[in-house]
């Protein structure tokens, strides 16, 4: 059991709890010495007592153990010190409730409330009228707390937890467990890396080398479990359960995320395994590659009396110095936002009036028009000049009940499309002409076209 971790963490908290430093006084912490025999005997008795009581607690649920049995067990174990009075003393300490004070935050406010705790602080309980003892609820918790401090050799259990979480479709727990495993392994991995780097201080590396077989077995088993977990997660049933759970709980986790997490666990385990192998090969070679640091300050003063040659100095600066780019290289975003572009407000275009608006001649319309009247116009031209007024009179502005006056005027204005041989001359009349067509009246300047014989 990892009592050291538990005691170490508790001691400092107790120091803080018992501190009588006035608020605002200097920050030094001076009290370091602890009273006592400094031999650990009482602690040892206490561990024995708790161990006994725990065994009892497991076999006869919550029953009491008589003092004589406890005494017997402990004297068996550490006969030289533990007299009856000593054991009795330890039991008295353990069953004494302690009063301590702590703050808790109050929901909804920033202030904190002070509480004192006296109940449930005794670690063991005694029956009222006889010397019989058992673990209290806190005492049982104590064992779990001491057990919680452990290293990677217990990782297999965590991996089983992960596997079970998948089996029970307890999806949020999957994240908790996998994060826990990864976080713990990450620390161990970084520890090993440091240990590999700083050989010469061996205590950190021995921790691993001594228990290497144990580590290897655990890691291999755990990789196996992680693989099972992955396979289980890929199960169709699990996916179905996940979808149902997601619908009912509305929690925002994707299945891929879960998958990724478990995959990550396996990857981390593989890295851990590889590092362990590296440790082994290193310890087998006995090659301790790391060197203690040279005295750089002595090097500096050495170079005062024996200056570096200019090549050496060039090399040193290029390889180790704060070199920077001789050529500026720019990233595309280097100048982003450096120059503000001022865009001018768009000015409304001034209104312009076209001097004359001519009805456009539609090509298709013109073709249709010429197909219908082209020959007629050509025939009329063969006999002499033709006037627009005359053409209107003949009703050539209607093609199949459709008004095509524009095309008629077009042909008169640009008569090159009329199927006649020779050039056509256009003459424009001087007076305004009127023609009534049905209810409407056309008002126009008459145009006369004439065929000029080619000489």
């Amino acid at each position, binding site marked *: 059991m990892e009592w050291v971790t538990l005691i170490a963490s508790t001691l400092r908290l107790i120091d803080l709890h018992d501190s009588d430093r006035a608020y605002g006084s200097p920050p030094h912490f001076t009290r370091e010495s602890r009273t006592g025999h400094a031999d650990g005997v009482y602690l040892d008795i206490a561990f024995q007592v708790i161990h006994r009581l725990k065994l009892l607690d497991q076999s006869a649920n919550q029953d009491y153990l008589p003092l004589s049995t406890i005494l017997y067990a402990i004297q068996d174990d550490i006969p030289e010190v533990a007299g009856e009075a000593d054991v009795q003393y330890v039991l008295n300490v353990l069953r004494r409730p302690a009063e301590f004070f702590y703050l808790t935050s109050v929901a909804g406010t920033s202030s904190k409330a002070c509480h004192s705790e006296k109940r449930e602080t005794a670690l063991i309980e005694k029956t009222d009228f006889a010397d019989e003892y058992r673990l209290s609820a806190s005492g049982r918790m104590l064992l779990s707390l001491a057990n919680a401090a452990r290293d990677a050799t217990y990782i297999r259990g965590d991996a089983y937890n992960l596997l079970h979480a998948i089996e029970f479709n307890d999806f949020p727990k999957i994240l908790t467990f996998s994060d826990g495993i990864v976080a713990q392994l990450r620390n161990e991995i970084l520890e090993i890396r440091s240990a590999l780097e700083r050989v010469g201080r061996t205590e950190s590396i021995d921790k691993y080398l001594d228990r290497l077989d144990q580590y290897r077995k655990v890691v291999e088993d755990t990789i196996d479990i992680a693989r099972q977990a992955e396979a289980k997660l890929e199960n169709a049933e699990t996916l179905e359960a996940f979808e149902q759970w997601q619908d009912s709980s509305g929690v925002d986790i994707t299945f891929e995320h879960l998958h990724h997490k478990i995959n990550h666990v396996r990857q*981390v385990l593989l890295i851990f395994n590889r590092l362990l192998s590296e440790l082994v090969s290193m310890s087998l070679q006995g090659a301790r590659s790391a060197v203690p640091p040279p005295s750089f300050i002595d090097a500096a003063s*050495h170079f005062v009396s024996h200056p570096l040659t200019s090549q050496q100095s060039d090399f*040193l600066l290029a390889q180790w110095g704060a*070199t920077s780019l001789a050529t500026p*290289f720019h990233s595309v975003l280097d100048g982003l936002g450096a120059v503000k572009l001022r865009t001018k407000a768009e000015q409304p275009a001034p209104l312009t009036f076209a001097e004359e608006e001519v009805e456009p001649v539609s090509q298709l319309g013109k073709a249709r028009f010429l197909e219908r009247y082209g020959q007629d116009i050509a025939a009329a031209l063969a006999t002499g000049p033709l006037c627009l007024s005359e053409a209107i009179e003949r009703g050539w502005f209607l093609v199949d009940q459709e008004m095509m006056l524009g095309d008629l005027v077009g042909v008169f204005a640009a008569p090159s499309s009329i199927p006649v041989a020779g050039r056509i001359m256009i003459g424009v009349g001087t007076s305004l002409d009127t023609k009534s067509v049905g209810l409407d009246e056309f008002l126009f300047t008459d145009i006369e076209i004439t065929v000029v014989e080619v000489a």
Partner: protein
Amino acid sequence: MNNSEMGRVHAWLLRHRIVESRSERRSVGKEEREIAGLLLNADYAVRRQFEEILDGQGLQLVTLTSLDAKGVASGATVFMLARKPDSAAPFWGTERLVIRMMQSKGINTETEARTWFTQLWFLLLDLLYTRKNRSPNAMQDWVDTSFIKEVFIDSVKDYLNDQVRKIDPSTLETDRVYRILTGLKEGGIAMACNAFLELMVDAGLLEEVGEETYRQSLLFAYEMKNNFDRQLKPLLPAQDPFGAATEILVERTDEDTEVD
């Protein structure tokens, strides 16, 4: 990552040397995040090609995750451009270094600037390695190297007073370095130290972790781990082999708790 993006990543790396996808210690800008994203999502082939280009330039793209090095935010990746041994990239120059060092009062020539920089660099190494009894291979310990500027400047002054000024210049074959080092006044020394720290931060070799507080960068620790034996050790004065052997045997225990 297409070629244009590769160029962008390249340019950024050459300038800053370190790209982090996320950090707990400093805020990572949008541009840096994008660069890290491009590198993370690059196809294997493209990434390989990029590494080959860098290799030709005497550089190495180093990728470290939270499982490779302490101080990397969990789930984050750090990309660094480390110098390969014996192939100092020709486009990296010391012009800026010289100019910046020469801005200190009393440092007037290029030789002076370079000498001061080299000396300060060794004193920094003394602070980062020798005094912590840290092996040059110990990359992981980069996280506990932070020091305040005052400590560095004091160690420089102590060095000048206790070691350099105690040398009798008449015993020296050449007193070039001696004269350079003893030529600065108190204020000039502080200015030189400031310039040095600024240059180191600018080159990605130191990190400014707080006001006037610096620490070694992961890049510096990595270069040290990989290049020390081949690139620096031969330059150093030979150590007494027996002295070195005894040092290996001495294990330093944790510092005792401070008792007033």
